[in-house]
């Protein structure tokens, strides 16, 4: 994603609805001049006027059209909590669009989209955007703690093959998204294609292990695995060098910034072992 048109924008909240008690869909007025984005792109938001918390909070773009930018906000701390309380018409400052590398648009190969929890945000954007662009050979695997956490309605009318996993078994497969992926792969129910994932770090790492662990006829079936990562960020622009992720290197792993070298990375390149922070 190019940085052209990137900026700090004063805009306003259009709508804020609680999807479930701790997760909100916030619709922000797309400011004039705010560029088009690709799935994996994100914005940073100033959640409060004062200095606690100090930094902007990054959120993946879940949908964007001429008038709206939509994000999914899970309340995990003071910043997300302040955001979850914002009301329609409240002014808000956003920095964006951010991200140096987003999810590549799928070519002919099928895509297997795997989301855990709020990781659904950029994945939902991908599904909606690409469905609209005619991509049809996509499969969604979406895991959450319980059926309450499976936000099916944010996918609206989009119909793609979808598989749900819940830890409590309240919807779909009982277990997590990675277990579901494995079971589908071993069932031969997944097409040969590329994986696009977003979710907690543990999930993405387990997914890498799962893909690597697939032997026999499944080996090499999933050529690419793109994943959108998270890290604590300050600038969001590649300036401060604060949001590092280690990629496998020759000797010591190389440090890249999640905000500007990512947030989308080749999952196989990540030095999971060395990523101790």
């Amino acid at each position: 994603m190019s940085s052209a048109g990137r900026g700090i924008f004063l805009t306003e909240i259009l709508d804020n609805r609680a999807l479930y008690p701790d997760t909100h869909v916030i619709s922000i007025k797309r400011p004039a001049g705010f560029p088009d984005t690709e799935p994996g792109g994100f914005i940073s938001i100033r959640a409060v006027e004062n200095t606690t918390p100090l930094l902007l909070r990054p959120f993946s773009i879940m949908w964007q059209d001429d008038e709206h930018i939509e994000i999914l906000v899970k309340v995990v701390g003071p910043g997300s909590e302040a955001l979850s309380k914002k009301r329609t018409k409240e002014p808000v400052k956003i920095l964006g669009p951010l991200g140096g590398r987003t999810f590549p648009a799928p070519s002919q190969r099928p895509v297997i989209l795997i989301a855990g929890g709020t990781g659904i945000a950029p994945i939902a954007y991908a599904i909606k955007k690409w469905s609209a662009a005619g991509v049809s050979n996509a499969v969604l695997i979406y895991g959450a703690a319980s059926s309450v956490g499976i936000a099916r309605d944010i996918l609206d009318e989009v119909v793609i093959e979808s598989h749900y996993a819940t830890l409590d078994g309240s919807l779909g497969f009982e277990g997590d998204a990675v277990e579901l992926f494995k079971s589908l792969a071993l069932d031969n129910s997944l097409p040969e294609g590329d994986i696009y994932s977003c979710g907690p770090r543990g999930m993405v790492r387990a997914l890498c292990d799962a893909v690597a662990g697939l032997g026999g006829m499944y080996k090499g079936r999933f050529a690419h695995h793109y994943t959108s990562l998270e890290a604590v960020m300050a600038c969001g622009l590649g300036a401060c060098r604060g949001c590092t992720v280690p990629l496998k290197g020759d000797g010591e792993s190389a440090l890249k910034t999640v905000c500007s070298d990512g947030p989308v990375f080749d999952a196989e390149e990540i030095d999971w072992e060395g990523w101790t922070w």
Partner: protein
Amino acid sequence: MGGMDLVSGRGVEVTIGSAVFKNPVFLASGPAGYGLEYETVIDLAVLGGVVAKTITYKPLVGNRGARLRETPSGLLNSIGLENVGCEAFLSEKLPAMVERGMRPIVSIGAEGWEDYERLLERLSGTEGFDAVEINLSCPNVDIGGMAVGRDPELVEKYVRRASEVLGGKCILAKLTPNVEDIVPLALSAEGAGADGIVAVNTIVGMDIDVRNRKLVFDRVTAGLSGPAILPVALAAVWKIARSVEIPVVGVGGISSVDDALKFFMAGAAAVEVGTAIFYDPELPVRIIERLEKDGIPERLSG
């Protein structure tokens, strides 16, 4: 004291040594990288100066482990001077800064004396900048940085050498507040030929991740910046401004236009905005607008 007397009608130009800056509002070294990253976000050409990320002779990869941690009204960082090195800086970053209308101030650091000499050598005679800020104060590296900046004799030695090698350029010495008294360091720098003092760099602090029972930073401690440290930075500037003849550049926690005015009243000739660029990128421009409207506040007596 007393009375409102901000409106002085003066221009906002500031002269430090041989360098004239069109206004006294700079970006501090580090948070904004080489300025380029903020290119589309703010109009960098209106700034009085952009202090680039501290460069060393060779590129540095910086610290492993977490590099950022929020604290109440503050930020701990342990970047560890990650930088592209002087070659890439001079061939790529600096020209790009100039091309985009920025007024670069080159921040220099070193892992020891030899490294420092090589860097100065490489910079000498180089065009494209007329001001240098010597980072004598980074708390996030083992060699050089704050270790040098705490010792008045080493400060004297480093600053003198820069004045000798880069003669003609404006030399700023950036000091650490992690000392008993910052004034002797400022006097050392002044005596060694510095054209200005920059105060302050970050304060040593640390944090612990209680839930996971572990240190946040691999190097244990990190550097505290942001509004939390403003009172400390302001006191440092106040004291230095009453001890040296050369201009003082105030930095530390500036988070509003009023904060910047405080530094001028404390005696600063210019200010730098660091951490605030993260959450309020437009702040430097608002400060400039205010100064242009009301003039630079006079320093308080006392």
